[in-house]
């Protein structure tokens, strides 16, 4: 328990929160980096996934990009980018690495969400005379919303985690508190930094879970649906089960 009380003592020392190496500054960097990268990721991945899903093309690409993303070590890509000529451009290697690893969950989930919209519903919408664009905006997107949000939520947590690793090659963010602790053999600081990072990750996860719940366009109707009931209760994302 010595480590926990040590970490608590570290966290309650005001001096550790102030200044360029302080927690507030590092937290600001971390949140800023996460927000920027998530925005870039959505701007790139969502249109591609939605259009591919609407047209029903490129399924293999959308699924395989996720598997590839898992096989490539984040740490290796971060170091490779920092050592590459890009490394001269400040934060850019970090941002590129973060976006690269955030794209797969957004792309795959949004694509699967679009494809899993009941075909009968889409056919009915067409039969009612809706144009392709109307079907997309009024039928497919609202129904695909939960999975699209799941993808963004997964990506957000992924970005928080990757941004932590960015501290190893000298990037900013809360990971710096941990690496600085390692460099000084200061275990309380390492644990304190880890607690901060874990808390941030859980907060981001919770934030998106709440957002997902309250922004769902068909949340009132979904409550009584039974088809997904079992999987919902267990919270099992389909992408883990079907392969």
């Amino acid at each position, binding site marked *: 328990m*010595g*480590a*926990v009380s040590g970490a608590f003592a570290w966290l309650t020392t005001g001096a550790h929160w102030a200044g360029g190496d302080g927690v507030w500054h590092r937290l600001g960097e971390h949140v800023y980096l996460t927000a920027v990268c998530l925005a870039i990721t959505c701007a790139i991945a969502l249109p591609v996934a939605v259009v591919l899903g609407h047209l029903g093309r490129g399924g293999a690409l959308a699924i395989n990009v996720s*598997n590839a993303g*898992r*096989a*490539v*070590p*984040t*740490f*290796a*890509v971060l*170091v*490779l980018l*920092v*050592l590459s000529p890009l490394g001269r451009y400040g934060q850019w290697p970090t941002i590129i690495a973060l976006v690269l690893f955030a794209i797969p969950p957004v792309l795959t989930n949004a694509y699967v969400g679009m494809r899993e919209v009941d075909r009968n519903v889409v056919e009915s919408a067409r039969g009612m005379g809706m144009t392709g664009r109307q079907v997309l905006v009024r039928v497919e997107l609202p129904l695909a919303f939960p999975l699209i949000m799941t993808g963004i939520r997964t990506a957000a*947590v992924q970005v*928080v*985690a*990757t941004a*932590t*690793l960015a*501290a*190893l*090659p000298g990037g900013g963010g809360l*990971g710096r508190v*941990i*690496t600085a*602790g*390692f460099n000084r053999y200061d*275990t309380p600081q*390492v*644990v304190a*930094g*880890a*607690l901060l*990072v*874990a808390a941030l*990750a*859980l907060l981001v*996860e919770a934030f998106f879970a709440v957002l997902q719940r309250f922004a769902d366009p068909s949340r009132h109707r979904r409550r009584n649906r039974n088809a997904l009931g*079992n*999987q919902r*209760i*267990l*919270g*099992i994302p389909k992408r*883990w*089960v*079907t*392969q």
Partner: protein
Amino acid sequence: MAGQDCLAANDWICGEYVRSRSQELTDATLQHLWITGVSVGMGLLVAFPLALIARRWRPAAGPVLGFTTILYTIPSLAMYSLLLPVFGVSASVVVTGLVLYSLTILVRNIVAGLESVPEDVREAARGMGYGPLRLLFGVELPLALPAVMAGLRIATVSAVSLTTVGAIVGYGGLGNLIYEGMNSLFKAQVLTASAICVAMAVAADVLLLGVQRLLTPWTRAGRRKAVA
């Protein structure tokens, strides 16, 4: 010698590096393999009873799955750092972290696999006089195998990738070489170690897919019949 030049020039791809440091590369690869293997193996051993508890005793399902999800949310660097005071600087830090991560995927997939067994099949087995244990190992598990193996593949590939972060405590397998190469700006070392790492993940995935095919011959027999 041309080979020496690429070391001096700090090229990305350098045959001389692979030749002169083959021992170092082999050691790192072996460390990577055993850390990943032990972690996923232990993960499977822990996940199996947890999944059975979650299935048998409904009130436990929510907390078990919720807890493993929370574990999965914690970034790897933070996870290893939190385990540092428990184990000190040792391979146990990395192995424990990886076991905890693999639990999320394995427990979910084992539960999902067991849930996917049709009730009729269970009923039929019971009618044939199967006891609970024989039902589980003789009927339910084989039928749950595709989902379990899918989880095992994801857990293994993730573990190969996450092992590299273990370099922070010096037990990261190929990650150690990446970490060293990062500090000394040694490009060939970083690229070679990264490439071996990706190759290892792909090889493990293909290997497990092969195992799955061998263990579930009926899935292919059925498909072939359906086509014919």
